[in-house]
């Protein structure tokens, strides 16, 4: 049996939930961006800390803690009744990779939201997506008072491929947030077209 969405005409269409990831350091505007383009909803995850995260994260004061609660930014955009985008914003630090590993499976792609004043905060996220070959783009949130850099300077600083989209955005603006998502989907489409056919040549 198929658990699709029944429409008014009695038809049965498969419900498609599509994940888009939004990564970036603390305070970079992930919540703002999700809120600008979708209805933001509460979502918490509480996971046991692994031995590894206890050791690598000694400065966080989690010694003796066995679980950690993380609030995710979670937004839903209904494009159609049977086609819904799910935005998941997660912190960029390594210790949250337990969340990313599952979020990334089957995801359309990712947006790395960066602040030019703290570009290094976006390194772990970029490394993560590159290593796992998850298509992503970089969006620079233009904070007031921050020096505007040319995107090409940022590309150099982040060591990104020439065809990797880098766009400037204002996370508070719906249109701008929309443009970020559109840029990602376009990038994924282009990447999909360029991919050589699999198999042995």
């Amino acid at each position, binding site marked *: 049996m198929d658990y699709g969405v029944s429409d008014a005409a009695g038809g049965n269409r498969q*419900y498609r*939930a599509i994940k888009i990831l939004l990564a970036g350091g603390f305070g970079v505007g992930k919540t703002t961006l999700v809120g600008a383009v979708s209805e933001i909803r509460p979502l918490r995850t509480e*996971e046991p800390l692994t031995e590894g995260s206890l050791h690598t994260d000694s400065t966080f004061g989690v010694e003796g803690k066995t679980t950690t609660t993380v609030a995710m930014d979670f937004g839903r955009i209904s*494009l159609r009744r049977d086609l819904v985008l799910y935005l998941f914003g997660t912190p960029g630090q390594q210790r949250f990779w337990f969340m990313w590993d599952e979020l990334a499976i089957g995801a359309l792609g990712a947006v790395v939201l960066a602040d030019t004043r703290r570009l290094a905060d976006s390194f772990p996220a970029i490394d993560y997506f590159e290593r796992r070959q998850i298509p992503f783009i970089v969006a620079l949130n233009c904070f007031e008072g921050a020096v505007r850099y040319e995107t090409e300077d940022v590309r150099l600083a982040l060591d990104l491929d020439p065809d990797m989209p880098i766009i400037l955005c204002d996370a508070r603006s719906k249109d701008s947030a929309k443009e970020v998502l559109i840029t990602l989907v376009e990038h994924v489409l282009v990447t*999909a077209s360029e991919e050589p056919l699999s198999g042995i040549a």
Partner: protein
Amino acid sequence: MPSNDERWLDAEAGPVVRPYALTQGRTRHTGESFDLVATVVATRSFADPAALAPEHISVLQLARVPTTVADIASDVDLPLGVVRIILADLRELGLVVISTPVVMAERIDKHTLREVLNGLRGL
């Protein structure tokens, strides 16, 4: 005889530990794993409300229409880990079916990508 680690979490201890008290201290669910955007739907099987915790009943009610795991966790306002265990319990009881998202099977196809693009442009 429970081990020292488990002594707080036996059935009679009551909710001394939040929120995993709801799961009798379990942090891992049983059975096949499921994605955050996997769709959950309640079966028509009879459920005895007295045999289920209020949280299990809330989850079951939300799943009367196909709903994703993430949506359920957000609506009942419980951590995902807890909701997963509740869902796995309900699945074991035959009260819900959890199906893999369509797009998980393989990469999202170009047709779907174009639909997403058009949808976003029309927002």
